[in-house]
C-alpha cells in the first residue's frame, strides 16, 4: 500500500528593502538626534499627524516643515499582553497602548512601563523615557511612564 504523505513543511524567507520616504526618515532622525517626536501639520484643518504623514480626512498638503510635539500625553487606550507569539517586542506580560501626545491629533503606539501593571489606567498622563543609545527607530524610546 503506498503511503499517503500528509504534509510538506518548509520555511519561506523573503528579504525586502523598504523605503521610508523623506518625512519618515526625518522623523526617525529627530528621534535619534534630538530625542524629539515630530509631526506633520495639515494645511487645511491644522491638525497634527504623528507619525508624520498626509491628512487622510482633508487630503490637503501638509506643511513642509515638520512640527515638534511633546513627548508626553494622555494614554488613550492600553492593554496588558499575556499572549505569547513570535515577533513580540517583549516577553509577556507587557503593556502597550495608544498615546495622544500633547500637540498632536493622532495616536502614537508604544509600550507603557516603569510602573506596576495594575496601576496603569486609561486616561493617565505618560511621558517618554528615552534610551541613552539610540539608532533611529521606535525603540529609541524605552517606554512611556506615568507622570506623577
Amino acid at each position, binding site marked *: 500500500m*503506498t*503511503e*499517503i*504523505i*500528509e*504534509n*510538506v*513543511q*518548509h*520555511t*519561506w*524567507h*523573503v*528579504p*525586502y*528593502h*523598504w*523605503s*521610508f*520616504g*523623506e518625512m*519618515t*526618515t526625518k522623523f*526617525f532622525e529627530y528621534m535619534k538626534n534630538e530625542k524629539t517626536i515630530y509631526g506633520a501639520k495639515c494645511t487645511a484643518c491644522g491638525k497634527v499627524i504623528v507619525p508624520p504623514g498626509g491628512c487622510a480626512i482633508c487630503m490637503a498638503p501638509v506643511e513642509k516643515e515638520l512640527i515638534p510635539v511633546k513627548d508626553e500625553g494622555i494614554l488613550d487606550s492600553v492593554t496588558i499582553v499575556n499572549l505569547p507569539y*513570535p515577533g513580540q517586542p517583549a516577553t509577556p506580560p507587557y503593556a502597550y497602548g495608544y498615546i495622544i501626545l500633547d500637540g498632536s491629533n493622532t495616536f502614537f503606539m508604544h509600550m507603557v512601563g516603569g510602573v506596576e501593571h495594575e496601576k496603569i489606567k486609561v486616561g493617565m498622563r505618560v511621558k517618554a523615557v528615552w534610551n541613552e543609545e539610540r539608532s*533611529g527607530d521606535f525603540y529609541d524610546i524605552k517606554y512611556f511612564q506615568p507622570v506623577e
Partner: protein
Amino acid sequence: MSRILDWDITVPYKWTTGSVIGKFLGGLKEHNILGAKCPACKKVFVPPQDLCPDCYVDLGEDDFVDVKNEGKVISFTKVEQDFFGKKPSEEYLNSRISPASVDEHPLLWPPEVPYAIVMVQLTGADTAMVHLVKGKDMDKLAVGGQVKAVFKDETIGHIMDIECFEVIS
C-alpha cells in the same frame, strides 16, 4: 535622502497535501512515479490533482496508475542568474521562526546556478511535470530528447526525492 530598512518576512509552514497529492508523494518515497487517470476523459495527470479541470470530476486514490520514470522533454530553460541572493544561516532562520525550527521546516530555496528547469512528459502521462537537470547534462538537453528520473537514496515523500533528471538521448 530616504532611509532604507533591510528586513525580511520569514515564516514556517506546514502544507496539507490531501489524499491525492499525498499518494503521489508516497509513490516517490518508493521510487515510483504515479499518475491519476480521470475516469471520464481518461487523461493521466502527473503530478496528479484533486480533480480533472476539464471534466470537473473528482480524482481519488483509486484512480492512480503507474507511469514510467522516463519521458520526453517538452521544453526547458537554463537558469544562469541567481535571483535569491545570499542564503540566510540556520541560526538566523531559527531566531526568526522560533519556537518552530529549521530542522522541521527546512528553508525552501532553489538549487545553485546554473541549473535547468525542464518540462517532462513521462511515458504514460498526458501532462508534463516540471523538474531539474543539473551539471553536464544541461548541455545535452534538447526538446524531444529523452530524460530519466534519478532518485535519491534517502527518500521522504517529497518532490525532491527525485534528485534531478538525467539525459538519456
